[in-house]
């Protein structure tokens, strides 16, 4: 049997789950209540045998204590208080109307109702978090993959539905049609209230929501590790600089929600490629500035791969410090890769070193793009232009 110990926070990583303390009170209560129920069923249907009554009373007391604690938590959130008042009020009203005739069936109904309320509250909290993070639940669902989307839906709406169904079954069994309608109305009212009161916030919050635990875990795996490495490499300034640079980039990516996954836009792809080239060439520092954005498709994939070759070339043969500027508008996507090293003239490139020709010019030719190389005393700049982006 599912215990009402369902965590109140939507968990996002196994780390979070592993660190959650087990809530003993509702667990014991549920076990006792279940035992009482079984006893009542086995011993007889009168429900008056003393052990049965004691078990049931103890179990119910535990569950009510857990419910009271959970209710207090929910009460502290404005929407939660509404849920608690309406939900508990409905149950109390129905109990009163039913004249407190506690048959085993009635006991089952109450237990299921309580569990349903708790699970529903959990689902409600999840929906609320989703909404406050992104404006509305459906705003949160834009820009994520199918799998993530279904996971989010199941995680947030699932408990709410399960809770509602449990309550419906319980109240239907005990009180018939009125209980059924009351619960449907309550659930619908809560959802409507929730959606109307969701306020848009302007920061992008990547999904799933980052809990404090998750942030701590991330910092532990990344920043603290790097700091340890830096302490051990204190004698090697180049290594320290490289470590700091990598960590800075990865932290910025994480803060901007660029972590992992295939980049969906040209700017995101350029940032990712710059990070890779920095990893590849020790000491390289590639700064990327982008204006406007463009989606990744077959042609822009070629563009970014050409840009990768240009960055490699700049960092290897030009200067370790490389600047990348990307501008996207309706006419074209243009990427500039600039170093401050000695100039590179295309005509001077020996035939056996075909890297630049094939890797950059070949790719750009393939997608009807152009390459302009400007080499002078101040360094070399390669301009990659991809016109007529189909939008």
């Amino acid at each position, binding site marked *: 049997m599912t215990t009402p110990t369902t965590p109140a926070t939507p968990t996002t990583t196994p780390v979070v789950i592993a660190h959650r303390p087990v809530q003993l009170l509702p667990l014991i209560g549920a076990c006792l209540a279940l035992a009482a129920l079984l006893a009542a069923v086995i011993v007889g249907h009168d429900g008056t045998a003393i052990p049965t009554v004691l078990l049931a009373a103890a179990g119910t007391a535990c569950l009510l204590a857990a419910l009271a604690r959970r209710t207090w938590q929910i009460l502290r959130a404005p929407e939660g208080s509404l849920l608690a008042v309406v939900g508990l009020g409905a149950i109390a009203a129905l109990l009163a109307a039913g004249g407190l005739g506690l048959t085993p069936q009635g006991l089952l109904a109450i237990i299921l109702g309580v569990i349903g309320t708790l699970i529903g509250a959990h689902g409600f909290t999840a929906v609320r978090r989703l909404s406050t993070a992104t404006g509305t639940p459906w705003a949160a669902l834009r820009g994520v993959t199918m799998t993530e989307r279904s996971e989010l839906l199941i995680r947030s709406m699932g408990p709410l539905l399960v809770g509602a169904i449990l309550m419906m079954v319980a109240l239907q069994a005990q009180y018939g049609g009125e209980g059924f309608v009351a619960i449907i109305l309550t659930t619908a009212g809560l959802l409507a209230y929730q959606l109307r009161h969701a306020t848009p916030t*302007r920061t992008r919050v990547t999904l799933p929501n980052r809990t404090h635990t998750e942030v701590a875990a991330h910092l532990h795996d990344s920043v603290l590790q790097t700091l340890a490495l830096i302490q051990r490499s204190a004698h090697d300034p180049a290594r320290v600089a490289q470590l700091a640079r990598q960590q800075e980039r990865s932290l910025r990516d994480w803060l*901007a929600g*660029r972590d992992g996954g295939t980049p969906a836009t040209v*700017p995101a792809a350029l940032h990712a490629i710059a990070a890779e080239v920095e990893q590849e060439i020790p000491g390289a520092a590639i*700064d990327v*500035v982008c204006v*406007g954005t463009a989606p990744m498709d077959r042609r822009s994939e070629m563009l970014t791969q050409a840009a990768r070759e240009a960055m490699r070339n700049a960092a290897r043969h030009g200067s370790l410090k490389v600047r990348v500027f990307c501008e996207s508008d309706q006419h074209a996507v243009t990427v500039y890769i600039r170093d*401050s090293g000695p100039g590179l003239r295309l005509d001077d490139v020996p035939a056996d070193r075909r890297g630049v020709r094939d890797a950059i010019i070949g790719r750009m030719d393939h997608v009807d793009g152009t390459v302009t190389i400007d080499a002078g005393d101040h360094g070399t700049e390669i301009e990659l232009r991809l016109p007529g982006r189909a939008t």
Partner: protein
Amino acid sequence: MVLDSDSEPPSTNRPTVVLVDDHALFRAGVRAELADHITLVGEASDVPSAIRVILGRQPDVVLLDVHMPQGGGLQVIQSVLERRPQQRFLALTVSDAPDDVISIIRAGARGYVEKSISTDDLATAIRLVADGEPVFSPRLAGFVLEAFSGRAPVGAVDPDVEQLTTREREVLRLIARGYAYKQIGLQLDISPRTVESHVSAVLRKLQLSSRHELAHWATRRGLGGI
């Protein structure tokens, strides 16, 4: 922006600087790196002492960390400019959040550079600000181009906001590509002085543009991923 140290007169008219940063380590680093380029006349690690030191020493340039406790760099700029409007600030930051950067420029900083800037570039930037010239980092140039890109839906843009001229856009694009003012001048066949006046004009438009539009833009920018 590479400093040409050969043509530099030896330590005569070095700009006086007050350094404001709440990280002692960072102050120590800057102090050591810039010893040959500037005359450090004061340091401060929080907002009240920064205001006191700046008003007391009246340096050519205040090198200012944007993120500090008690209201941060913004508070310092606003308080000082009330009493000493001619004070010049160069903002130094690790933040690449556009609203941070823009609010500091709007408050009156003459320039913005990233903390990872090389020593030579920082020295050049300080000298430019001391001479009353604006300093844009490539990243800031990118932000500004985006802010004035006109990609905002019609109606969202404040009609009073003066748009950038084609020339100003060209200059910003070259800054974003990493060109120094001198190189920009060569590229556009104008004098470095003209380049500076274009950047000043951009700075002025940025400071005059409506808060609403900038907030709107910063939001979009924040949502779009940098």
